[in-house]
């Protein structure tokens, strides 16, 4: 029906408001605003007199410690990329935590047990972390591709297996573990990732690597045949099969890459030099699944599974967590920030609906202004339909 418009509109430059990325950005922004408002209300209820001061810390606290914001953003940026990348293929990598833990362990093992020249020791340790994650991503990948076992189930299990296995191996390793302190020794300085040297913060080269990796992923997804196959499979696996794409190989490859990203996250986290006690350089085997893996899911969701979007959402979540920690100065529990983040994620799950609403508003305005009829607008309904379908698919997967 839109045929008569022909191709005359293809040369027109797109306005920013017409770009899909813009509306997913604004909808994420809306989710954030709603989440923050909700957090403010909770603060008001918890302790009215300090609410304004506390909220100011949440909003602005991160600014004064932006180096630390980046320091804490590094691991969740990596796990976020891991989840987002698998998601593009239609796989839900809930196993980021296990892969992250394996990454930490492999990096630690190389750091303590190998004797390498100081100039390359830290790099080898990082690569070892990547290898650990790859192995832990490979397992659900091979189960999915050869036996069609749902990756959500296997990767939940690998989370536990990974965590207990690592705890066991660390406790039984007398070279690393200090029983009296229930943690490992600190990573020797020459294996630590080099600091960026910004005074008063813990920011290090980890964030630089993470940003480069995010850009690389963007290029892989957008410019390569592998990315083309990956996205095609994620959108429509029947068509991918019909086109002769090797689905089994791609599933394994995607999970291995996702695992590598999480593993790198673990290595970046554990090898980072830090003055914040317990946040790095040592592993505590306390039978808890690494939270940074699950934070990666939140980061990927808020970033719309887009590598560049994930950069911003990781930094944002880290930023607001810093603010939350500072809010404890006026008597608030840092858990308030977890609450706010939960609400933000909750609303960004509605992003599909909000995003189409935003586009509709702009579309209507444009139509009224200049009577430009853009044929793409009529896709909105279908877009929403398919996006909601995707969401349902995902939530079903989660339910499984």
């Amino acid at each position: 029906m839109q045929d008569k418009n022909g191709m005359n509109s293809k040369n027109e430059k797109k306005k920013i408001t017409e770009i899909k990325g813009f509306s997913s950005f604004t909808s994420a922004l809306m989710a954030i605003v709603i989440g923050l408002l909700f957090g403010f209300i909770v603060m008001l209820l918890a302790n009215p007199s300090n609410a304004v001061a506390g909220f100011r810390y949440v909003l602005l606290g991160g600014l004064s410690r932006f180096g630390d914001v980046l320091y804490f953003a590094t691991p969740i940026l990596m796990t976020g990329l891991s989840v987002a990348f698998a998601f593009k293929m239609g796989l839900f990598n809930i196993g980021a935590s296990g892969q992250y833990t394996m990454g930490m362990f492999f990096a630690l093992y190389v750091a303590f047990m190998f004797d390498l020249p100081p100039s390359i020791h830290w790099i080898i340790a990082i690569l070892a972390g990547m290898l650990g994650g790859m192995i832990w991503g490979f397992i659900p990948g091979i189960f999915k591709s050869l036996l069609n076992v749902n990756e959500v189930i296997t990767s939940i299990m690998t989370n536990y297996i990974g965590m207990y296995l690592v705890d066991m191996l660390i406790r039984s390793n007398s070279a690393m573990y200090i029983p009296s302190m229930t943690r490992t020794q600190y990573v020797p300085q020459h294996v630590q990732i080099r600091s960026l040297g910004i005074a008063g913060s813990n920011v290090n080269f980890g964030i630089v690597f993470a940003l480069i990796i995010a850009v690389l992923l963007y290029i892989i997804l957008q410019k390569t045949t592998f990315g083309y196959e990956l996205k095609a499979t994620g959108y429509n696996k029947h068509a991918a099969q019909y086109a002769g794409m090797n689905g089994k190989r791609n599933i394994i490859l995607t999970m291995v890459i996702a695992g590598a990203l999480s593993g790198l996250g673990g290595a970046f986290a554990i090898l980072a030099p830090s003055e914040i006690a317990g946040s790095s350089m040592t592993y505590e085997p306390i039978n808890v699944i690494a939270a940074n893996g699950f934070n990666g899911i939140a980061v990927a969701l808020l970033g719309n599974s887009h590598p560049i979007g994930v950069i911003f959402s990781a930094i944002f979540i880290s930023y607001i967590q810093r603010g939350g920690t500072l809010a404890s100065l006026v008597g608030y529990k840092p858990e308030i920030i977890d609450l706010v983040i939960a609400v933000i994620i909750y609303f960004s799950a509605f992003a599909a609906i909000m995003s189409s609403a935003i586009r509709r508003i702009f579309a209507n305005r444009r139509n009224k202004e200049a009577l430009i009829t853009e044929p793409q607008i009529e896709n909105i309904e279908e877009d929403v339909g398919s996006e909601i379908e995707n969401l349902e698919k995902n939530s079903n997967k989660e339910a499984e």
Partner: protein
Amino acid sequence: MENENYIIEMLNITKEFPGIVANDNITLRLKKGEIHALLGENGAGKSTLMSVLFGLYQPEKGEIRKNGEVVKINNPNDANDLGIGMVHQHFRLVEVFTVLENIILGVEPTKNGFLNMDEARKKVVELSERYGLKVDPDALIEDISVGMQQRVEILKMLYRDNEILIFDEPTAVLTPQEIHELLQIMKGLANEGKSILFISHKLNEIMEVADRCTVLRKGKCMGTVDIKDTTKEELSRMMVGREVSLKVDKKESQPGEVVLSIRNMTVPSKIHKNNAVRDVSFDVRRGEIVCIAGIDGNGQTELVQALTGLEKMLTGSINICGKDISKASVRERSIAGISHIPEDRQKYGLVLDYTLEENLVLQRYWQPQFQNKGFIKFDEVRKYALRLIDKFDIRSGQGPVTIVRSMSGGNQQKAIIAREMDKDHELLVAVQPTRGLDVGAIEYIHKMLIEGRDSGKAVLLVSLELDEVLNVSDRILVMYEGEIVGELDPNKTTDEELGLYMSGAKRDDVKEIYNAG
């Protein structure tokens, strides 16, 4: 004066979607006791108009009247209350329920909170006899034929005392005999005072059964005509807006050497325990169109999936130009020379969320022409897409960067055809390539198939449409319950004979020819 006979009037209906007018000032008047055909190409606005009548959309302008009074239809329940019922193209029946249970579903008669089946049974039997529907109320849906299932759908409407019956492309799934029966039933219903809206693009059936016909084109109403005063040619001209040849022009085929040779193929079924394809053998030669005819669900889908590599065979062998591809992957088969226009274009043929240009290279993105060391050459892709769009006249909102989901069904199909025909191939496998398309698009696709044949390709066409089977093919193989039960010459056979083979009433032993040779 004008509304005395009309049971439903849709007056000056205008329904807009952002950027497009789906229904532009359309008026449709349905007389009591008539069969009124609604004819139009895909995307002409038929579905939108019916959705308005069903309360799924609210029109911007216009009103709906029943028996002369303005009514407001806000949702399908309102439509049901007004006595409007619909037989959908895809039946909405519970397979494991009996006919009776399906009919009363949603309006179960109860007595003190318990089901009262006796009363329902009495009414169903009575209705079934009155309209000659011949339905056994205790049969399970999964055990009865498609034609019978459709009659159950009709009974559902009658049971709900609907007076206005909408049939949405009802003959698409039926054999010629069943189509004939259905048309008789429709006439009977009309004689009993029911009013029927008959959505169809099959001109023969409209000519046979309808009293009047309203034609839509591109959202506009082209007028309502009395069937007795019109011809098929005039109707198709109104629908398409230009002269359309209803006959397929083609020369005699000049079959060359064998391209595809299938021997003893057996394919297991996913749905039932029996094999879907049983010991099938046949050849397709260069320069001929071989058509596999049959009623839906007799193993055609599985045959094609096994041929193209989407499913595994149990036994048998496949040769393309003398090369054994029985165990080859989809990609290897594609390289060996199979092009495949799949049955379900949205499920298999396209990545709907990809752009048109990305879809046009779906089979070729890995070739050196389009990639270098794993990086896609986007300018080459663009150039190639523009060439195909121009050559095959694929229309879309924004050219190569249009998201395919937003394109019309006909143009989606054109994109697939462009991709598959332009790819190097020896054998073109086309499965229901014209399904759901309008006359203009069908004409185009038939032309392309014949062009492919004349350029020396082998064409294997799978079709459920008798007209297509008889007009396009050079040789017909009829499939029934997984076996090839007849090989016919389209010039020497008739609708009736084909129908007998398709329904299993008649069969020849075809296998011997190939097994001996």
